[in-house]
């Protein structure tokens, strides 16, 4: 049925586009027409291949040859040699290492191994509302294996050996956590799934629940078996209606298939799962706060110890892990601890899902092996910075994390490296910023979030973060002093040192990391009263270009504070003392004479 015998895929990702992929495409098209091949071979533009620095990229189908750094002038050679003569143009092939990657490619013609999908293995592949499709992808085999072949301790040992660490941010060894809960003696225990993904800009857990809910259910049952719990609870954000629906469907199906309920796999093990809803409080991502919220109370954290593994939901031992952590478990059981431990770095095993967002071309959900560099994530997978602007910073770890700079681009991502760099893994939000982002404002944005979301129980977090926010606000308005910068640092350090829970203990990180990495920018705001990104309104000046001004008086009439003076038909002038920077004059001017400086 195929009309065309060959396809030439030209990457039209943003970066390739910027490096003339369009011209390459046109040149190829012209050459084909010149050789009367336009009805045999088709040129198609595609999304990003994830090899932006080698772009433009051309791929030939069906033989899967990949050409890199193709220039318009190469079009003729490709058409003549490859299409007409069947000879590969060797000089355009990628370097050896890349070639190897492509040589080993398997199932699909568009294949590259920078990403590995473990937690996301089924996400976007299977119908999340069809349990049979999950089973067809080896679903529930791990649970079966655990219940019929392993003792609880053996399962715990596998998880321990795999090196899996909590994906919710803290990075606590998962197997160890399970073991602690397992060892506590109690008539009742609980398995809790923390699905209160609250970082602004993070949607990893939501995607897993929407795309592969059974993997979470299966893992929770496995945990129940290990720890001796018969009841699982998923604490999920009420703002995630679709994830709630898919989880409910999945739980019902699992019950119908006997994979939840009594005597699962004839092992004598009973397990069932209920949903509990969050109600919009970021702090409930903290496990003790989460438990109080599940008990119908204000989501205020309590001092640890006791940890939930000993004293959790309703005072009973409870194992709390987040969605992504659980999603890894069935694979580890199926493929073995050694396989999992072979991926990643020495202390951080496996892969991590990130929600890549901000000023980046390929916003999306990605999963990379631990140890992948930020550069690979941002410039290869992410396709680089939007609009060809300059990369400035990447924020990881949400409101608990920090802003990293171009100096950190070659840092391999893992728990310990990110902390050493002044940020943290967090749950996996990764926001990219460009030259238009003012780092003081970014710090203020995060502090604003923390102030909104602080529970108010302990004084450093309740009052300290408010004061941090106020100082940052003052700086962005151009009213800051060097003394304020000293205060920022001392306050940040004390809040970290004295706060009750993880929220307060990490909330100053956006301030500290920007102070460390963008000190000059703070000083500019304070001393030079200048915002290089041009985003701090308080530091901007509206001025009238005397040349362009026609003296129409439209601006002067519109100015709400009468800051503009000038003769009719003569150039006008803005009195900076009076101006409140509302921007009305700029809106009103028909001659583009009002400028923002």
């Amino acid at each position, binding site marked *: 049925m195929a009309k*065309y015998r060959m396809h030439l895929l030209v990457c039209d990702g943003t970066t390739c586009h910027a490096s003339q992929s369009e011209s390459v495409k046109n040149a190829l098209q012209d050459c084909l027409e010149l050789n009367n091949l336009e009805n045999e071979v088709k040129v198609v533009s595609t999304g990003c291949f994830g090899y932006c620095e080698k772009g433009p990229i051309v791929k030939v189908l069906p033989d899967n040859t990949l050409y890199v750094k193709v220039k318009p002038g190469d079009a003729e050679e490709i058409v003549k040699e490859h299409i007409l003569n069947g000879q590969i143009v060797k000089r355009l092939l990628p370097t050896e290492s890349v070639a190897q990657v492509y040589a080993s490619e398997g199932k699909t013609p568009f*294949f590259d*191994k920078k990403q590995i999908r473990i937690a996301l293995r089924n996400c976007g592949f299977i119908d999340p509302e069809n349990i049979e499709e999950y089973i067809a992808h080896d679903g529930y085999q791990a649970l079966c294996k655990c219940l019929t072949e392993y003792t609880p301790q053996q399962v715990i040992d596998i998880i321990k050996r795999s090196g899996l660490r909590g994906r919710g941010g803290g990075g606590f060894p998962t197997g160890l956590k399970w073991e602690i809960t397992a060892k506590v003696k109690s008539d009742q225990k609980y398995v809790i799934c923390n699905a209160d993904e609250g970082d602004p800009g993070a949607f990893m857990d939501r995607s897993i629940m929407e795309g592969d809910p059974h993997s979470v259910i299966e893992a929770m049952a496995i945990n129940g078996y290990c720890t001796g719990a018969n009841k699982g609870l998923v604490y999920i954000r009420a703002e995630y209606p679709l994830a709630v629906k898919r989880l409910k469907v999945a739980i019902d199906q699992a019950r*119908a298939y006997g994979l939840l309920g009594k005597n699962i796999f004839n092992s004598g093990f009973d397990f069932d799962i209920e949903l509990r809803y969050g109600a919009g409080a970021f702090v409930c991502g903290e496990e003790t706060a989460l438990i109080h919220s599940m008990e119908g109370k204000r989501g205020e954290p309590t001092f640890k110890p006791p940890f939930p593994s000993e004293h959790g939901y309703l005072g009973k031992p409870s194992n709390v892990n987040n969605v992504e952590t659980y999603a890894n478990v069935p694979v580890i059981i199926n493929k073995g601890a050694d396989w999992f431990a072979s991926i990643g770095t020495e202390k951080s095993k496996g892969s991590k899902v990130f929600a890549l967002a901000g000023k980046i071309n390929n916003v999306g959900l990605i999963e990379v092996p631990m140890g992948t560099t930020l550069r690979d994530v941002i410039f290869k997978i992410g396709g680089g910075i939007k609009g060809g602007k300059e990369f400035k910073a990447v924020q990881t770890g949400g409101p608990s994390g920090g802003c990293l700079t171009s100096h950190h681009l070659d840092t391999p991502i893992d728990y310990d490296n990110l902390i050493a760099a002044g940020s943290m893994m967090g749950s996996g939000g990764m926001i990219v910023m460009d030259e238009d982002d003012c780092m003081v404002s970014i710090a203020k944005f995060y502090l604003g979030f923390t102030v909104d979301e602080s529970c108010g129980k302990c004084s450093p977090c309740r009052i300290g973060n408010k004061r941090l926010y106020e100082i940052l606000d003052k700086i962005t308005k151009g009213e800051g002093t060097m003394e304020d910068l000293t205060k920022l640092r001392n306050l940040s350090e004390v809040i970290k040192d004295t706060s009750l829970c993880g929220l307060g203990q990490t909330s100053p990180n956006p301030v500290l990391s920007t102070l460390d990495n963008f000190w000059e920018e703070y000083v500019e705001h304070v001393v030079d009263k200048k915002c290089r990104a041009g985003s701090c309104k308080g530091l901007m000046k509206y001025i009238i270009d005397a040349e362009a001004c026609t003296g129409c008086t439209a601006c002067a009439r519109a100015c709400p504070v009468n800051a503009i003076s000038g003769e009719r038909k003569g150039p006008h002038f803005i009195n900076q003392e009076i101006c409140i920077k509302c921007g009305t004059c700029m809106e009103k001017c028909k001659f583009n004479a009002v400028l923002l400086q």
Partner: protein
Amino acid sequence: MVHVKTIEDLKKIKEEFGKRIQVSGKNFDPEKVVQIKVGLGTSGIASGAKEVMNFLRDELEKRNIEALVTQTGDMGYSYAEPTIEVKLPGQPAVVFGKVNIKKADEIIERYIKNGELIDGILPTNYMTI
């Protein structure tokens, strides 16, 4: 309803699932039918994936193409939502991004009917396990 009690039960479901796909009472041979997955995560839906899915279902039936359209989760390409994956019999699956009604129509007419690739393919840039 199957009550799964052993590994064999699981394996049976797995095998059966590969062999026959049933949609609204009809049996399909997966080897002979066009299979389309529509990414119906929150961002997909927000970008109009549901409309695209309905369009595909209606139009494929109208145009007498034996096809199975199912939903799936987020494929990860938030920048290119809505995304759909099309698998023609005997061929590798191809993912298309930014699929609106017009694009969906083009996919039916050109790719599904003629095997002609069209602009907007998303290269799969990850390895799955």
